[in-house]
C-alpha cells in the first residue's frame, strides 16, 4: 500500500511500516485472504466496490457478474456504508452462495479492504472535504 502521503515516509515506503512489525503482519494477512477458499475474482470485485464506495478509485462499469459475486459486492457496499444495514435477506442470499468457511474469510477480507481504503483516503496527500457529524453521548 504505497501512496503519496503527508506522513513523513520516504518515497516508495509503506506507511504501515511506521509501526514495527505491522507491515509484515498486514502483508501476511492480505496474502492469506486470497488463499482462504474464496474465488479471487469475487474478492477483487469486492475490493473494487469498496474502494469505489470510499472514493479511492473510480467506479468501474464492469460486466454482468454472477449471482455470487453480486451478493458479495452488495454485502461489501453495505458494510462500508452502514454495517448495521445488512439485512437478514442479504445474509440468507450469502449463505446460498458461500459456505460458512468462505463467509468468514470473505467478511475478514471485506473488513481488511475497507480498513486499507480508509487509511489511504485519510492519509493521502490530496486534500479532503471535512464532514461534520455528531455522536450521541451517554
Amino acid at each position: 500500500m504505497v501512496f503519496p502521503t503527508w506522513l513523513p515516509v520516504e518515497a516508495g515506503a509503506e506507511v504501515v511500516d511506521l509501526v514495527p512489525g505491522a507491515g509484515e503482519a498486514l502483508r501476511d494477512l492480505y496474502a492469506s485472504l486470497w488463499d482462504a477458499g474464496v474465488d479471487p475474482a469475487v474478492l477483487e470485485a469486492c475490493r473494487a466496490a469498496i474502494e469505489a464506495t470510499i472514493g479511492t478509485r473510480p467506479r468501474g462499469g464492469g460486466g454482468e457478474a454472477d449471482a455470487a459475486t453480486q451478493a458479495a459486492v452488495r454485502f461489501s457496499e453495505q458494510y462500508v456504508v452502514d454495517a448495521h444495514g445488512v439485512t437478514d435477506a442479504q445474509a440468507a442470499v450469502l449463505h446460498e452462495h458461500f459456505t460458512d468457511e468462505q463467509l468468514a474469510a470473505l467478511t475478514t477480507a471485506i473488513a481488511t479492504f475497507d480498513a486499507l481504503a480508509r487509511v489511504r483516503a485519510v492519509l493521502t496527500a490530496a486534500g479532503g472535504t471535512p464532514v461534520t457529524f455528531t455522536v450521541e453521548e451517554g
Partner: protein
Amino acid sequence: MRFTPPPGGTSFFDYSPDVFRAFNVVYGRLWSEGSVDQPTKEVARLRNARVVDCAI
C-alpha cells in the same frame, strides 16, 4: 444469530482459523507497537465504536 460459530469455536471467524490468526497478529501489532500509547488507542477505538454504533 445469522452466523453461528463452528463446534468448539467462540467466534464465527473460527471457520477460517488461518485468516483469523493473521488478522489477530495485525491487531496485536497495532496495539503493542508504535509510538502512540495504549490509552490513546483505546480512546480512538471507543470513539470509533460509538460513531459506527457498535455495542461494546
